[in-house]
């Protein structure tokens, strides 16, 4: 167990010594984005524990090093859950034998299938404590659900991959977990038709909270979908049991597709956990993995365009999240960049050998005026450039 003060002291030492720090929790996401060159590592894993959980106020607050499963278990015991359904990507990023932490999932702003309806991790971070590169503890937000007091550094720090501050404590909005989950499975639709069906579902009044399309090979990798066959379009409803029944029924009538089947709560939870954790992605041991975020209707085009480059993938978020795996070389990466750009979207290189991820833009480079501001904000938060240098952008 370590204290927030000891993290402060470590950062202060590093500032004085002008020595960069690799910032991490349990390091489960160290394979993401660019590799960091740092003499020392600062882990928040020892700063662990739930500080406040007020189910009636829909608020939980914990130290950054708290294992995410510990938080999920505490919430489940009170019938609540993490709204953004954060994934466990250890099957892609490699198992470290340790769980991901609250700080890690916040610093990477990774969200699961529910993001399409209920928002990302960043939408539910109500408060943050962090040690900046000025070696100061700062707070932003608080422990209430509505707060516009001052600049929203919660959002700036969430998804900043430890480059602007070492997140030490996170306060999240949580919600009651749904009683029941149901899934409508539409077989046989290609990517474009599947995405159109997902758009119709998401544009229905039925509160769809999951919308994915899996090509045949990807669907076959999900045990809960075994034996159905063909590409599958998945539509999820989470609500009280009678509402799930009613809404799935209405959606089923709406499509009137032969062969449509429904999954019950247990089946649905297993299938969507697999979708959340990118299990349908057939990523070979040497493959690179990308997440591309585009307007939903553009998802099928990105997927199809990149097939020529030897990639495989599937669609979540109604088509707006394209999961891709393919050859870990600069040509394939360039193709992913081009496809994302052509669709007006963005890419994240989630996994690749150091040689590739150190050599390419793991996220899109910013236009010059924005990049200037980015450098100025980085300098404002971390004047010595000691926090996770180069994690997001080369030279920053």
């Amino acid at each position, binding site marked *: 167990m370590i204290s927030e003060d000891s993290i402060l002291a470590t950062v202060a030492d590093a500032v004085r010594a002008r020595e960069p720090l690799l910032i991490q929790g349990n390091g489960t996401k160290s394979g993401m984005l660019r590799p960091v060159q740092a003499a020392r590592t600062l882990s928040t894993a020892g700063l662990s524990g739930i500080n406040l959980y007020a189910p009636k106020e829909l608020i939980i607050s914990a130290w950054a090093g708290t294992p995410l499963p510990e938080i999920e278990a505490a919430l489940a015991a009170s019938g609540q859950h993490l709204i953004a359904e954060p994934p466990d990507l250890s099957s892609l990023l490699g198992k470290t034998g340790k769980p991901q932490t609250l700080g890690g999932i916040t610093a990477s702003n990774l969200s699961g299938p529910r993001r399409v309806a209920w928002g990302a991790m960043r*939408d539910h971070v109500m408060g943050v404590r962090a040690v900046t590169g000025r070696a100061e503890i700062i707070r932003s937000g608080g422990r209430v659900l509505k707060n*516009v007091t001052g600049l929203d550094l919660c959002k700036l720090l969430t998804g900043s991959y430890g480059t602007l501050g070492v997140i030490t404590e996170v306060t999240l909005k949580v919600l009651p977990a749904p009683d029941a989950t149901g899934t409508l499975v539409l077989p046989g639709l290609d990517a474009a038709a599947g995405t159109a069906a997902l*758009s119709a579902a998401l544009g229905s*009044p039925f509160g769809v909270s999951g919308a994915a399309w899996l090509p045949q090979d990807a669907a076959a990798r999900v045990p809960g979908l075994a034996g159905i066959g063909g590409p599958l379009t998945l539509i999820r409803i989470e609500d009280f049991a*009678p509402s799930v029944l009613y809404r799935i029924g209405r959606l089923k009538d709406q499509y009137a597709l032969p062969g449509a089947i429904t999954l019950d709560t247990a089946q649905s939870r297993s299938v969507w956990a697999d979708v959340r954790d990118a299990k349908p992605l057939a990523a070979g041991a040497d493959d690179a993995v990308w997440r591309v975020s585009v307007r939903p209707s553009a998802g099928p085009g990105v997927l199809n365009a990149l097939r020529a480059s030897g990639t495989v993938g599937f669609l979540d*978020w109604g088509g707006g999240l394209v999961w891709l795996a393919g050859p870990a070389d600069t040509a394939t990466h360039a193709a992913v960049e081009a496809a994302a750009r052509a669709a007006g979207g*963005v890419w994240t290189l989630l996994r690749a050998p150091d040689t590739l991820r150190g050599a390419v833009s793991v996220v899109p480079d910013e236009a010059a005026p924005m990049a200037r501001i*980015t450098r100025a904000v980085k300098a404002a*938060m971390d004047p010595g450039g000691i926090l996770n240098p180069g994690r997001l952008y080369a030279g920053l």
Partner: protein
Amino acid sequence: MIRQPGSKPEVMGRRIHILAGLRALLPETGLITEPNLLKPYETDGLSAYRQVPLAVALPETTEQVAAVLKYCHQNGVRVVPRGAGTSLSGGALPMEDSVVVGMMRMNQILDIDYPDRCAVVQAGVTNIGITNAVSENGFFYAPDPSSQLACMIGGNVNMNSGGAHCLKYGVTANNLLGLKIVTIDGDIIDIGGAHLDAAGYDWLGLLTGSEGMLAIVTEVTVRILRGPEGARAMLAAFGSNEIAGAAVDAIISSGIIPVALEFMDRPAIHACEAFAHAGYPLDAEAMLIIEVEGSAEEQDRLLGQLSAICQRFDPLSLKVSQSPEESLAIWKGRKGAFGAVGRISPDYLCMDGTIPTSQLPHVLRRIQEMSDSYGLKVANIFHAGDGNLHPLIMFDANDPSSFHKAEEFGADILKLCVEVGGCLTGEHGVGVEKRDLMQVQFHAHELQQQREIKSAFDPDWLLNPSKVFPLLEPEAAGLPQAA
């Protein structure tokens, strides 16, 4: 009274030259300089503070905004962005030497994309204008601040506006996908787009709620949502604030998240009933308006469960709406609350703090004690699900001492909100109103960190300065800030 910074003599001295320069950048009627025409821009929803600006620019395109900002930057002129001027915290209050950039002429809806559930609109489109544009297809834009008929989306972005339905749908920040902004350098930058997750830093999140201090927003990509099959409200009246608070806890604990959960105390009930004749129970100490969504059967089931929960707290009355008309009647009083209080007292301050909901009974008790000791009446309206409290403090503007007392009373309430674990503002923003209270919530170095981030966007502190942060002496003297 809240202190305003002094004017920059070099700007005031070059006034004529600066106005001529601006005029050349704008359409023929795009620059207002005549004192009588500037008058409407001297204040916003915080009407106790007034200052006529140097000029008002009314650009029609992003490029004109860029030209104006570049010019102001080169000439050291302060800029105050303005939408409809509905800010309750003085966010659009001008300085004497400032140019107000009014966004009302940029009022076009540029694109509506139903399959991708988003719309691109200019900053001067009203909040309700977005919903009106998509309602024929059953869609809506979720955040619904009380001022939604007038307030503009650019202002909503800058204040991260909320509304009565945030518990389910979130605030402005949760309903945005992209922005087009203009920096003080005159650079035009696109942030985000029609996709859900941006890569890199969350500039969209930082800009939302930045109160016009970082950039001017000219276009906004919003999420549009399909409306539910239907919605219905119920009303539950209780014998004390404590009991009503306990009922709120029990509702949240039941796993039902109503789409709205509004709390009114006795003075608010009486004011609203006298105004709207909504059939509110005048014997009650506290009242909840609870709204649920779904099909008729789903509404019945949820309202039945909620009624059963409320029954456990000895309600004085319980009224479940049986029709859209009855729901409308239940909401009528709540939605007319500001007008209602305005009838009792011509002048009032609408405060906006957030508290942990468990602190509600304690906070309402303390507010009543303060009301007695200040000798000013107060009515409390509360977004109970998310802890956002709106005390309306009544005073007499013809009596300066009454106004000062009201301001002090308001400050005491907000200090109390922070003391019990809450914050100074839930949805109205800091503006000038709460600027000097920021030290109650933040340490000096935390405010300095926020200032440094503003400096990263606006090194010379020309964009809406003297808002949000307590004045530092160089700024108060009208000198550029050191980074």
